[in-house]
């Protein structure tokens, strides 16, 4: 999915390290993640945060991902990407506890 010609397989240690970084980041960014989710819940009253986040998300995806891929196109489509973004944010927000690393790892391996 990324704009890269090198197809490297991720190693187990790298996978673990990425999960640890993700959990630490989501713990640190929990108030922001929560606000984005809350903004989506009542778009009529507070839509600015959700729109800003969605625009930045699309910007980053089109900048760094292979836009010709069908899966990436789905991520860029604002009508279709809501579910993916909400579920990703929810997953991150549920993995901020001390056992968050194990929780996120299990979720990723089980999905």
């Amino acid at each position, binding site marked *: 999915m990324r704009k890269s010609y090198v197809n490297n397989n991720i190693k*187990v240690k790298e996978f673990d390290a990425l999960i640890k970084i993700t959990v630490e980041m989501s713990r640190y960014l929990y108030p922001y993640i929560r606000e984005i989710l809350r903004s989506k819940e009542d778009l009529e009253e507070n839509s600015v945060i959700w729109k800003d986040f969605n625009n930045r998300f699309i910007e980053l995806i089109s900048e760094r991902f292979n836009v010709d891929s069908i899966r990436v196109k789905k991520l860029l489509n604002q009508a279709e990407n809501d579910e993916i973004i909400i579920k990703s944010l929810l997953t991150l927000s549920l993995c901020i506890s001390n*056992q968050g690393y194990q929780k996120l790892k299990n979720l990723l391996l089980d999905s």
Partner: protein
Amino acid sequence: MQNKLSFHQSSVSLEIIGLPDYSNNENKDQISIISQWKLTIIDKPLIEGKIEHLGPIMNAFYIYSNLLIKNKIPLYESKLIDIKAENLNLHNIVLKSSKPNIKPLILKIGNSLLSDTINCFDQLNESPKVRIKNTYDINNIPKNLRFELNNKVRFFSFFMPPFIAICSLILFSSSFIYFYNPVENIEKKELINPK
């Protein structure tokens, strides 16, 4: 005198009231015998109950959130609590009273409150000061262990090349047996030069 412990996460707080188990030589601060718990969600009615209700309610939230994340049908139903997704952002919670003639309590919470509630439960589960039984095991081992498969592949790729090399060396060197037979050679030499 009962001990009281509170766990907070943004708009949700969970209060646990109980006593330590002195027969187990526990500290005064510990709570092992829970007598009451209260779950406060801002702008929603207070949820409280007995210890028998806390475990099933926590399990319901954990199971429901797992179903939600794993793209399965987000629906949990039990005698005590029902949780159902109204849409992507809203969840309906129906808390049924164990007492007769009491109407069930219906709550509608969003994803932000759902994650706050589960994070409060996580804090309770991880707290060394509270001992709680029968909670959902979040560390259940997933069935699909792709990385173990990867490890197997790596194991084979590490051992197979030298194994094939040794086998081919044995096969290649065994073919030389047909070219050189030392016993026959000695016999021939004896025939040429008989002593």
